[in-house]
Protein backbone atom coordinates (compact mmCIF):
# COMPACT_ATOMS: atom_id res chain seq x y z
CA UNK A 1 0.00 0.00 0.00
CA UNK A 2 2.76 2.32 1.03
CA UNK A 3 4.78 1.36 -2.03
CA UNK A 4 1.81 2.01 -4.31
CA UNK A 5 1.33 5.45 -2.74
CA UNK A 6 5.03 6.25 -3.17
CA UNK A 7 4.93 5.12 -6.79
CA UNK A 8 1.94 7.34 -7.57
CA UNK A 9 3.63 10.26 -5.94
CA UNK A 10 6.79 9.62 -7.91
CA UNK A 11 4.88 9.60 -11.20
CA UNK A 12 3.11 12.85 -10.31
CA UNK A 13 6.42 14.42 -9.52
CA UNK A 14 8.05 13.47 -12.79
CA UNK A 15 5.08 14.85 -14.70
CA UNK A 16 5.24 18.21 -13.03
CA UNK A 17 8.66 18.17 -11.50
CA UNK A 18 9.06 21.91 -11.76
CA UNK A 19 5.83 22.66 -9.92
CA UNK A 20 6.55 20.10 -7.20
CA UNK A 21 9.93 21.70 -6.66
CA UNK A 22 8.31 25.12 -6.28
CA UNK A 23 10.38 26.25 -9.25
CA UNK A 24 9.94 28.84 -11.94
CA UNK A 25 7.79 27.10 -14.54
CA UNK A 26 6.78 29.00 -17.71
CA UNK A 27 4.38 26.19 -18.75
CA UNK A 28 2.55 26.31 -15.44
CA UNK A 29 2.34 30.08 -15.64
CA UNK A 30 0.85 29.98 -19.14
CA UNK A 31 -1.75 27.41 -18.04
CA UNK A 32 -2.68 29.13 -14.78
CA UNK A 33 -2.57 32.79 -15.64
CA UNK A 34 -6.38 32.97 -15.53
CA UNK A 35 -6.26 32.17 -11.80
CA UNK A 36 -4.78 35.63 -11.22
CA UNK A 37 -7.55 37.50 -13.02
CA UNK A 38 -9.96 37.71 -10.08
CA UNK A 39 -7.31 38.81 -7.53
CA UNK A 40 -6.01 41.36 -10.02
CA UNK A 41 -9.47 42.86 -10.48
CA UNK A 42 -9.98 42.87 -6.69
CA UNK A 43 -6.67 44.69 -6.39
CA UNK A 44 -7.70 47.31 -8.96
CA UNK A 45 -11.04 47.76 -7.19
CA UNK A 46 -9.44 48.19 -3.75
CA UNK A 47 -6.86 50.66 -5.05
CA UNK A 48 -9.18 52.85 -7.10
CA UNK A 49 -11.95 52.95 -4.49
CA UNK A 50 -9.56 53.83 -1.66
CA UNK A 51 -7.70 56.51 -3.61
CA UNK A 52 -10.98 58.02 -4.91
CA UNK A 53 -12.49 58.27 -1.42
CA UNK A 54 -9.16 59.47 -0.03
CA UNK A 55 -8.94 62.16 -2.69
CA UNK A 56 -12.42 63.52 -1.94
CA UNK A 57 -11.65 63.70 1.81
CA UNK A 58 -8.13 65.13 1.38
CA UNK A 59 -9.32 67.68 -1.19
CA UNK A 60 -12.07 68.89 1.15
CA UNK A 61 -9.63 69.09 4.07
CA UNK A 62 -7.11 70.97 1.93
CA UNK A 63 -9.69 73.55 0.84
CA UNK A 64 -10.72 74.06 4.48
CA UNK A 65 -7.06 74.42 5.51
CA UNK A 66 -6.54 76.84 2.62
CA UNK A 67 -9.11 79.21 4.16
CA UNK A 68 -8.24 78.53 7.81
CA UNK A 69 -4.51 78.17 7.72
CA UNK A 70 -4.07 77.29 11.39
CA UNK A 71 -5.84 73.98 10.71
CA UNK A 72 -2.96 72.76 8.50
CA UNK A 73 -0.85 71.68 11.50
CA UNK A 74 -3.53 69.64 13.31
CA UNK A 75 -4.77 68.01 10.06
CA UNK A 76 -1.21 67.07 9.11
CA UNK A 77 -0.61 65.63 12.59
CA UNK A 78 -3.76 63.47 12.50
CA UNK A 79 -3.32 62.21 8.92
CA UNK A 80 0.37 61.68 9.73
CA UNK A 81 -0.52 59.39 12.64
CA UNK A 82 -2.93 57.43 10.40
CA UNK A 83 -0.14 57.11 7.86
CA UNK A 84 2.32 55.85 10.48
CA UNK A 85 0.27 52.97 11.87
CA UNK A 86 1.35 49.91 9.82
CA UNK A 87 -1.30 48.63 7.43
CA UNK A 88 -1.33 45.11 8.86
CA UNK A 89 -1.92 46.53 12.35
CA UNK A 90 -4.60 48.88 11.00
CA UNK A 91 -6.47 45.97 9.39
CA UNK A 92 -6.57 44.03 12.65
CA UNK A 93 -7.48 47.10 14.69
CA UNK A 94 -10.49 47.63 12.42
CA UNK A 95 -11.62 43.98 12.27
CA UNK A 96 -13.60 43.98 15.56
CA UNK A 97 -15.38 47.16 14.47
CA UNK A 98 -16.07 46.65 10.78
CA UNK A 99 -15.62 42.89 10.33
CA UNK A 100 -13.75 40.98 7.61
CA UNK A 101 -14.18 42.20 4.07
CA UNK A 102 -13.66 44.92 1.51
CA UNK A 103 -14.98 47.61 3.83
CA UNK A 104 -12.21 47.17 6.40
CA UNK A 105 -9.53 47.04 3.72
CA UNK A 106 -10.85 50.17 2.01
CA UNK A 107 -11.11 52.16 5.25
CA UNK A 108 -7.49 51.38 6.16
CA UNK A 109 -6.16 52.01 2.65
CA UNK A 110 -8.10 55.28 2.42
CA UNK A 111 -6.58 56.42 5.70
CA UNK A 112 -3.12 55.94 4.17
CA UNK A 113 -3.77 58.14 1.15
CA UNK A 114 -4.91 61.13 3.22
CA UNK A 115 -1.52 62.47 4.32
CA UNK A 116 0.05 62.13 0.86
CA UNK A 117 -2.86 63.80 -0.94
CA UNK A 118 -3.49 66.49 1.67
CA UNK A 119 0.18 67.47 1.78
CA UNK A 120 0.51 67.71 -1.98
CA UNK A 121 -2.73 69.65 -2.52
CA UNK A 122 -1.76 72.10 0.25
CA UNK A 123 1.78 72.50 -1.09
CA UNK A 124 0.37 73.09 -4.58
CA UNK A 125 -2.04 75.77 -3.42
CA UNK A 126 0.67 77.47 -1.37
CA UNK A 127 2.99 77.50 -4.36
CA UNK A 128 0.70 79.75 -6.42
CA UNK A 129 2.47 83.14 -6.65
CA UNK A 130 0.79 85.88 -4.61
CA UNK A 131 1.00 88.23 -7.62
CA UNK A 132 -1.11 85.86 -9.72
CA UNK A 133 -3.82 85.76 -7.06
CA UNK A 134 -3.64 89.55 -6.80
CA UNK A 135 -4.00 89.89 -10.54
CA UNK A 136 -7.07 87.66 -10.63
CA UNK A 137 -8.63 89.68 -7.81
CA UNK A 138 -7.79 92.84 -9.72
CA UNK A 139 -9.66 91.46 -12.71
CA UNK A 140 -12.72 91.16 -10.48
CA UNK A 141 -12.79 87.41 -9.84
CA UNK A 142 -14.55 86.30 -6.68
CA UNK A 143 -12.77 84.15 -4.09
CA UNK A 144 -14.46 81.03 -5.48
CA UNK A 145 -13.53 81.92 -9.07
CA UNK A 146 -9.96 82.62 -8.03
CA UNK A 147 -9.77 79.21 -6.38
CA UNK A 148 -11.25 77.16 -9.23
CA UNK A 149 -9.96 79.12 -12.23
CA UNK A 150 -6.54 80.30 -11.05
CA UNK A 151 -5.22 78.60 -7.92
CA UNK A 152 -6.30 74.98 -8.53
CA UNK A 153 -5.16 74.84 -12.19
CA UNK A 154 -1.76 76.19 -11.14
CA UNK A 155 -1.60 73.70 -8.27
CA UNK A 156 -2.50 70.80 -10.58
CA UNK A 157 1.06 69.50 -11.13
CA UNK A 158 1.58 69.08 -7.35
CA UNK A 159 -1.89 67.57 -6.93
CA UNK A 160 -1.30 65.03 -9.70
CA UNK A 161 2.14 64.21 -8.29
CA UNK A 162 0.39 63.40 -5.00
CA UNK A 163 -2.15 61.25 -6.84
CA UNK A 164 0.65 59.25 -8.46
CA UNK A 165 2.37 58.64 -5.10
CA UNK A 166 -0.96 57.71 -3.50
CA UNK A 167 -1.80 55.24 -6.29
CA UNK A 168 1.55 53.42 -6.31
CA UNK A 169 1.66 53.30 -2.49
CA UNK A 170 -1.88 51.95 -2.31
CA UNK A 171 -1.19 49.23 -4.90
CA UNK A 172 1.68 48.10 -2.65
CA UNK A 173 -0.31 48.23 0.59
CA UNK A 174 -3.30 46.47 -1.02
CA UNK A 175 -1.13 43.34 -1.26
CA UNK A 176 -1.69 43.09 2.50
CA UNK A 177 -5.47 43.63 2.25
CA UNK A 178 -6.11 39.88 2.40
CA UNK A 179 -5.44 40.11 6.15
CA UNK A 180 -8.66 42.08 6.34
CA UNK A 181 -10.50 39.70 4.01
CA UNK A 182 -10.23 42.06 1.06
CA UNK A 183 -8.57 39.58 -1.33
CA UNK A 184 -6.23 41.03 -3.93
CA UNK A 185 -2.90 39.84 -5.30
CA UNK A 186 -1.42 39.48 -1.81
CA UNK A 187 -3.72 36.55 -1.14
CA UNK A 188 -2.18 34.76 -4.13
CA UNK A 189 1.32 35.39 -2.82
CA UNK A 190 0.64 34.49 0.78
CA UNK A 191 -1.83 31.69 0.76
CA UNK A 192 -1.36 28.16 -0.46
CA UNK A 193 -5.17 27.94 -0.26
CA UNK A 194 -5.47 30.31 -3.18
CA UNK A 195 -4.40 27.39 -5.37
CA UNK A 196 -1.00 28.79 -6.24
CA UNK A 197 1.37 27.17 -3.78
CA UNK A 198 1.99 30.33 -1.82
CA UNK A 199 5.16 32.13 -0.84
CA UNK A 200 7.62 29.28 -1.60
CA UNK A 201 6.45 28.75 -5.17
CA UNK A 202 8.70 30.81 -7.46
CA UNK A 203 6.29 30.91 -10.40
CA UNK A 204 3.53 32.25 -8.18
CA UNK A 205 5.69 34.90 -6.54
CA UNK A 206 6.91 36.12 -9.92
CA UNK A 207 3.41 36.29 -11.44
CA UNK A 208 1.56 37.82 -8.47
CA UNK A 209 4.41 40.17 -7.50
CA UNK A 210 5.01 41.10 -11.13
CA UNK A 211 1.33 41.88 -11.66
CA UNK A 212 1.32 44.16 -8.61
CA UNK A 213 4.35 46.07 -9.89
CA UNK A 214 2.87 46.27 -13.40
CA UNK A 215 -0.37 47.59 -11.95
CA UNK A 216 1.47 50.32 -10.04
CA UNK A 217 3.42 51.28 -13.17
CA UNK A 218 0.22 51.34 -15.25
CA UNK A 219 -1.60 53.66 -12.84
CA UNK A 220 1.48 55.88 -12.73
CA UNK A 221 1.65 56.14 -16.53
CA UNK A 222 -2.09 56.84 -16.84
CA UNK A 223 -1.89 59.79 -14.43
CA UNK A 224 1.29 60.99 -16.12
CA UNK A 225 -0.48 60.88 -19.49
CA UNK A 226 -3.47 62.70 -18.00
CA UNK A 227 -1.11 65.33 -16.63
CA UNK A 228 0.37 65.96 -20.08
CA UNK A 229 -3.13 66.35 -21.54
CA UNK A 230 -4.37 68.58 -18.72
CA UNK A 231 -1.36 70.89 -18.64
CA UNK A 232 -0.56 71.86 -22.23
CA UNK A 233 1.44 74.90 -21.04
CA UNK A 234 3.82 72.66 -19.09
CA UNK A 235 4.39 70.49 -22.13
CA UNK A 236 5.39 73.55 -24.12
CA UNK A 237 7.88 74.45 -21.40
CA UNK A 238 9.49 71.02 -21.31
Amino acid at each position, binding site marked *: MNALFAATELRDRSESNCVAD*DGFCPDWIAENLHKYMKPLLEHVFLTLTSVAIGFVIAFTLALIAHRRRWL*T*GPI*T*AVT*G*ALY*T*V*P*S*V*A*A*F*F*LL*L*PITGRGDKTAIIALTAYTLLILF*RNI*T*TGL*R*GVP*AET*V*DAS*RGMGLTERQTLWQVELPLALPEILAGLR*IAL*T*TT*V*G*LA*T*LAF*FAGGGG*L*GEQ*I*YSANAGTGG*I*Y*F*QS*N*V*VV*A*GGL*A*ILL*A*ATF*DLIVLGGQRLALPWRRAQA
Partner: protein
Amino acid sequence: MAEVSCPPPPENLGAFQDAIDFIVSERESVSGGVCIGGPSELLDLAARHMVVSVVAMAIAVAIAVPIGLWLGHRGVGEFLAVTVSNVGRAVPTLALLAFFVAFVGIGFTNVVLVLTLLAIPPILTNTFVGIRQVDRETVDAARGVGLTETQIIRQVEFPLATPTIFGGIRTSAVAVVATATIAPLANVQSLGIPILEPQTYGDPGQLGAAIVIAVITLATDAGLGLAQRAATSKGLKAAEPEKRFSLPLRRREKTA
Protein backbone atom coordinates in the same frame (compact mmCIF):
# COMPACT_ATOMS: atom_id res chain seq x y z
CA MET B 1 -3.99 17.47 27.77
CA ALA B 2 -0.70 18.62 29.24
CA GLU B 3 -0.70 20.66 32.42
CA VAL B 4 -0.02 24.32 31.83
CA SER B 5 0.98 26.96 34.34
CA CYS B 6 -1.32 29.66 33.00
CA PRO B 7 -5.08 30.24 33.18
CA PRO B 8 -7.40 29.49 30.24
CA PRO B 9 -8.44 32.44 28.05
CA PRO B 10 -10.95 34.68 29.82
CA GLU B 11 -14.54 34.54 28.59
CA ASN B 12 -17.13 37.19 27.80
CA LEU B 13 -14.69 40.01 27.21
CA GLY B 14 -15.11 42.54 24.42
CA ALA B 15 -12.63 42.23 21.53
CA PHE B 16 -10.44 45.11 22.66
CA GLN B 17 -10.60 44.19 26.37
CA ASP B 18 -9.63 40.64 25.44
CA ALA B 19 -6.68 41.94 23.40
CA ILE B 20 -5.48 44.12 26.27
CA ASP B 21 -5.76 41.13 28.60
CA PHE B 22 -3.63 39.15 26.11
CA ILE B 23 -0.97 41.85 26.32
CA VAL B 24 -0.88 42.17 30.12
CA SER B 25 -1.28 38.55 31.23
CA GLU B 26 -0.36 35.05 30.09
CA ARG B 27 -3.05 32.60 29.04
CA GLU B 28 -3.40 29.14 27.55
CA SER B 29 -3.23 29.02 23.76
CA VAL B 30 -6.28 28.40 21.58
CA SER B 31 -5.16 24.87 20.73
CA GLY B 32 -4.17 24.28 24.36
CA GLY B 33 -1.04 23.01 26.03
CA VAL B 34 1.09 26.16 25.65
CA CYS B 35 1.20 29.50 27.43
CA ILE B 36 0.94 32.54 25.18
CA GLY B 37 0.74 36.30 25.57
CA GLY B 38 1.67 38.38 28.55
CA PRO B 39 4.48 40.91 28.94
CA SER B 40 7.34 38.40 28.82
CA GLU B 41 6.47 36.88 25.43
CA LEU B 42 5.50 40.22 23.88
CA LEU B 43 8.67 41.93 25.16
CA ASP B 44 10.75 39.10 23.72
CA LEU B 45 9.01 39.38 20.34
CA ALA B 46 9.27 43.18 20.43
CA ALA B 47 13.01 42.92 21.13
CA ARG B 48 13.50 40.55 18.15
CA HIS B 49 11.34 42.88 16.05
CA MET B 50 13.52 45.85 16.94
CA VAL B 51 16.84 43.99 16.48
CA VAL B 52 16.07 43.02 12.88
CA SER B 53 14.77 46.56 12.21
CA VAL B 54 17.74 48.35 13.77
CA VAL B 55 20.32 46.18 11.97
CA ALA B 56 18.60 46.84 8.62
CA MET B 57 18.38 50.58 9.31
CA ALA B 58 22.04 50.80 10.33
CA ILE B 59 23.14 49.13 7.08
CA ALA B 60 20.78 51.27 5.00
CA VAL B 61 22.04 54.51 6.58
CA ALA B 62 25.67 53.42 6.15
CA ILE B 63 25.05 52.81 2.44
CA ALA B 64 22.54 55.49 1.43
CA VAL B 65 23.80 58.56 3.29
CA PRO B 66 27.38 58.57 1.89
CA ILE B 67 26.13 57.90 -1.66
CA GLY B 68 23.48 60.61 -1.34
CA LEU B 69 26.05 63.09 0.07
CA TRP B 70 28.48 62.40 -2.74
CA LEU B 71 25.88 62.52 -5.55
CA GLY B 72 24.30 65.63 -4.07
CA HIS B 73 27.61 67.41 -3.66
CA ARG B 74 28.70 66.59 -7.19
CA GLY B 75 25.21 67.41 -8.49
CA VAL B 76 25.08 64.22 -10.52
CA GLY B 77 22.74 61.26 -10.51
CA GLU B 78 19.48 63.13 -9.97
CA PHE B 79 17.75 60.65 -12.26
CA LEU B 80 19.14 57.75 -10.19
CA ALA B 81 18.16 59.29 -6.86
CA VAL B 82 14.60 60.03 -7.99
CA THR B 83 14.06 56.78 -9.91
CA VAL B 84 15.25 54.64 -7.00
CA SER B 85 12.58 56.10 -4.74
CA ASN B 86 9.83 55.83 -7.37
CA VAL B 87 10.64 52.21 -8.12
CA GLY B 88 11.02 51.49 -4.41
CA ARG B 89 7.50 52.72 -3.79
CA ALA B 90 6.00 50.58 -6.56
CA VAL B 91 7.44 47.28 -5.27
CA PRO B 92 5.08 45.84 -2.64
CA THR B 93 6.95 44.78 0.50
CA LEU B 94 5.13 41.47 0.60
CA ALA B 95 6.20 40.74 -2.99
CA LEU B 96 9.81 41.67 -2.18
CA LEU B 97 9.87 39.41 0.87
CA ALA B 98 8.15 36.61 -1.07
CA PHE B 99 10.72 36.98 -3.84
CA PHE B 100 13.55 36.51 -1.36
CA VAL B 101 11.85 33.55 0.32
CA ALA B 102 11.24 31.82 -3.02
CA PHE B 103 14.54 32.59 -4.74
CA VAL B 104 17.18 33.37 -2.09
CA GLY B 105 16.08 31.73 1.11
CA ILE B 106 14.71 32.36 4.58
CA GLY B 107 16.32 33.50 7.81
CA PHE B 108 17.66 36.55 9.59
CA THR B 109 20.14 37.65 6.91
CA ASN B 110 17.54 37.57 4.16
CA VAL B 111 14.98 39.51 6.16
CA VAL B 112 17.63 42.11 7.00
CA LEU B 113 18.43 42.33 3.27
CA VAL B 114 14.78 42.87 2.35
CA LEU B 115 14.33 45.55 5.01
CA THR B 116 17.59 47.25 3.96
CA LEU B 117 16.46 47.36 0.33
CA LEU B 118 13.20 48.87 1.54
CA ALA B 119 14.97 51.49 3.68
CA ILE B 120 17.55 52.72 1.18
CA PRO B 121 15.39 54.67 -1.34
CA PRO B 122 13.88 57.30 1.02
CA ILE B 123 17.23 57.92 2.74
CA LEU B 124 19.12 58.17 -0.56
CA THR B 125 16.57 60.50 -2.15
CA ASN B 126 16.23 62.73 0.90
CA THR B 127 19.99 63.01 1.36
CA PHE B 128 20.41 63.93 -2.30
CA VAL B 129 17.59 66.47 -2.25
CA GLY B 130 18.74 67.91 1.10
CA ILE B 131 22.24 68.55 -0.23
CA ARG B 132 20.97 69.96 -3.53
CA GLN B 133 18.71 72.36 -1.65
CA VAL B 134 21.67 73.99 0.07
CA ASP B 135 22.09 77.48 -1.36
CA ARG B 136 24.80 77.34 -4.06
CA GLU B 137 25.98 80.79 -2.98
CA THR B 138 26.61 79.45 0.52
CA VAL B 139 28.72 76.66 -0.93
CA ASP B 140 30.60 79.14 -3.14
CA ALA B 141 31.25 81.32 -0.11
CA ALA B 142 32.63 78.32 1.78
CA ARG B 143 34.88 77.53 -1.16
CA GLY B 144 35.93 81.18 -1.29
CA VAL B 145 37.09 81.20 2.34
CA GLY B 146 39.28 78.20 1.56
CA LEU B 147 37.36 75.12 2.72
CA THR B 148 38.23 71.87 0.97
CA GLU B 149 35.47 69.86 -0.73
CA THR B 150 35.38 67.38 2.18
CA GLN B 151 35.12 70.25 4.65
CA ILE B 152 32.29 71.79 2.62
CA ILE B 153 30.34 68.54 2.76
CA ARG B 154 30.98 68.00 6.46
CA GLN B 155 30.73 71.55 7.79
CA VAL B 156 28.33 73.30 5.42
CA GLU B 157 26.17 71.00 3.32
CA PHE B 158 25.62 68.19 5.83
CA PRO B 159 24.47 70.41 8.75
CA LEU B 160 22.14 72.37 6.46
CA ALA B 161 20.70 69.15 5.00
CA THR B 162 20.34 67.36 8.36
CA PRO B 163 16.57 67.97 8.78
CA THR B 164 15.85 66.58 5.30
CA ILE B 165 18.19 63.59 5.73
CA PHE B 166 16.58 62.80 9.08
CA GLY B 167 13.17 63.04 7.41
CA GLY B 168 14.25 60.24 5.06
CA ILE B 169 15.60 58.13 7.92
CA ARG B 170 12.32 58.62 9.77
CA THR B 171 10.25 57.55 6.77
CA SER B 172 12.43 54.47 6.28
CA ALA B 173 12.44 53.51 9.95
CA VAL B 174 8.64 53.58 10.11
CA ALA B 175 8.40 51.46 6.94
CA VAL B 176 11.00 48.99 8.25
CA VAL B 177 9.36 48.55 11.66
CA ALA B 178 6.00 48.12 9.91
CA THR B 179 7.35 45.54 7.48
CA ALA B 180 9.22 43.54 10.14
CA THR B 181 5.69 42.42 11.03
CA ILE B 182 5.71 39.95 8.11
CA ALA B 183 9.23 38.69 8.94
CA PRO B 184 7.80 35.39 10.32
CA LEU B 185 6.94 34.48 6.70
CA ALA B 186 10.72 34.13 6.27
CA ASN B 187 11.10 32.27 9.56
CA VAL B 188 12.30 35.24 11.64
CA GLN B 189 10.44 35.90 14.87
CA SER B 190 8.85 39.29 15.35
CA LEU B 191 5.62 40.81 16.66
CA GLY B 192 4.02 39.39 13.51
CA ILE B 193 4.02 35.91 15.08
CA PRO B 194 0.68 36.30 16.93
CA ILE B 195 -0.81 37.81 13.76
CA LEU B 196 0.41 35.09 11.41
CA GLU B 197 -0.37 32.17 13.72
CA PRO B 198 -4.05 32.60 14.55
CA GLN B 199 -4.45 28.87 15.17
CA THR B 200 -2.35 29.35 18.32
CA TYR B 201 -2.98 32.96 19.25
CA GLY B 202 -6.57 33.52 18.13
CA ASP B 203 -8.33 36.83 17.59
CA PRO B 204 -7.12 38.46 20.85
CA GLY B 205 -3.51 37.61 19.92
CA GLN B 206 -3.89 39.19 16.49
CA LEU B 207 -5.56 42.31 17.85
CA GLY B 208 -3.16 42.54 20.81
CA ALA B 209 -0.11 42.29 18.57
CA ALA B 210 -1.64 44.85 16.19
CA ILE B 211 -2.00 47.28 19.12
CA VAL B 212 1.62 46.72 20.23
CA ILE B 213 2.89 47.16 16.65
CA ALA B 214 0.90 50.37 16.19
CA VAL B 215 2.28 51.77 19.46
CA ILE B 216 5.87 50.80 18.59
CA THR B 217 5.66 52.38 15.15
CA LEU B 218 4.14 55.62 16.47
CA ALA B 219 6.85 55.70 19.17
CA THR B 220 9.57 55.16 16.56
CA ASP B 221 8.19 58.03 14.49
CA ALA B 222 7.87 60.34 17.50
CA GLY B 223 11.32 59.39 18.85
CA LEU B 224 13.04 60.05 15.54
CA GLY B 225 11.08 63.29 15.25
CA LEU B 226 12.62 64.43 18.53
CA ALA B 227 16.06 63.24 17.39
CA GLN B 228 15.55 65.17 14.17
CA ARG B 229 14.93 68.36 16.13
CA ALA B 230 17.89 67.72 18.41
CA ALA B 231 20.18 67.13 15.42
CA THR B 232 19.08 70.28 13.64
CA SER B 233 21.45 73.19 14.19
CA LYS B 234 20.14 76.08 16.29
CA GLY B 235 20.39 78.54 13.42
CA LEU B 236 18.12 76.46 11.21
CA LYS B 237 15.56 76.00 13.97
CA ALA B 238 15.43 79.74 14.60
CA ALA B 239 14.97 80.39 10.89
CA GLU B 240 12.16 77.88 10.43
CA PRO B 241 10.21 77.40 13.64
CA GLU B 242 7.34 75.74 11.80
CA LYS B 243 9.45 73.12 10.04
CA ARG B 244 7.88 70.46 12.27
CA PHE B 245 5.05 69.78 9.89
CA SER B 246 7.45 69.76 6.95
CA LEU B 247 5.27 71.95 4.80
CA PRO B 248 6.68 75.00 3.11
CA LEU B 249 4.93 77.66 5.13
CA ARG B 250 5.55 80.55 2.83
CA ARG B 251 3.02 83.16 3.82
CA ARG B 252 1.21 84.98 1.12
CA GLU B 253 1.56 88.73 1.52
CA LYS B 254 -1.58 90.59 2.51
CA THR B 255 -3.06 92.28 -0.50
CA ALA B 256 -4.87 95.16 1.11
